[in-house]
């Protein structure tokens, strides 16, 4: 029982830190509240979709931004998608980075856009790492609770 209690505390502290550091926001709680017996992996499924879709968008952005004549409408469309999905799952810092990106895009500022792409990538990989650790811990806790281990 001791082991489980410790895991539970660590998980709670870790989760809390993600909110404290502004990596996740309230919207992530909304997702958690949607999870139920009929859909016990809902959060994991949505976040996995987010990972897939975001990486696709980041790749597209990299390609569009190295062209000689940059198609800013395309850049804007991709950033808009990424802003939307990060907002929907509560990936707070990614969302903020996208907002800044949109502004440089509207101004057709190439250097600004390139810097923003880097920033978005950094924030994305950060939240990805954190969420992967989150799910791992959650899984460990679930397994430990079920086996009733000490």
């Amino acid at each position, binding site marked *: 029982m001791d082991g489980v209690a410790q895991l539970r505390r660590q998980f709670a502290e870790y989760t809390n830190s993600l909110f404290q550091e502004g990596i996740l926001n309230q919207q992530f709680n*909304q997702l958690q509240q949607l999870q139920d017996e009929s859909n016990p992996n809902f959060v994991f499924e949505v976040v996995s*979709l987010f990972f897939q879709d975001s990486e696709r968008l980041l790749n597209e952005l990299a390609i569009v931004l190295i062209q000689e004549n940059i198609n800013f409408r395309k850049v804007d469309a991709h950033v808009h998608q990424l802003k*939307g999905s990060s907002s*929907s799952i509560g990936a707070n810092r990614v969302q903020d980075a996208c907002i800044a990106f949109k502004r440089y895009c509207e101004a057709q500022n190439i250097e600004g856009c390139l810097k923003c792409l880097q920033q978005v990538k950094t924030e994305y990989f950060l939240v990805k790492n954190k969420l992967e650790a989150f799910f791992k811990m959650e899984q460990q806790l679930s397994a430990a609770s079920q086996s009733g281990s000490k």
Partner: protein
Amino acid sequence: MENGDEPHVLAVDDNVIDRKLVEKLLKNSSCRVTTAENGPRALEFLGLGNDQQNILKGNEPKVNMVITDYCMPGMTGYDLLKKIKESSTTKEVPVVIMSSENIPTRINKCLEEGAQMFIQKPLKQSDVKKLTCQLMNCKG
């Protein structure tokens, strides 16, 4: 209205994460959900597609509400709203517009065109509960 108690909602959004989210939110509010990834697909489902003008009348699936994203490439949510309101078979169907951007002129434009409601993204369970309550009351 139908014998079935569950309202059937058509949810339209080009973002795959948002589609999954709105679907779950609606299911949690006891709705049957069909999703579409763009306006043209939504119109096809409603029997309003380009090739369907005189063919499917009477056989269209019954839809109690349409909820659509505003910003979609090609046909926007506003364009979709207009098409739904222009057709005699669908003009009574309530249409809700979702958007991440809070732009008063955009909101007014949609409401003037007959949108039931304009909701800000990201969607919360309370937003959808409010919507479906309204819908159920309309069913009377």
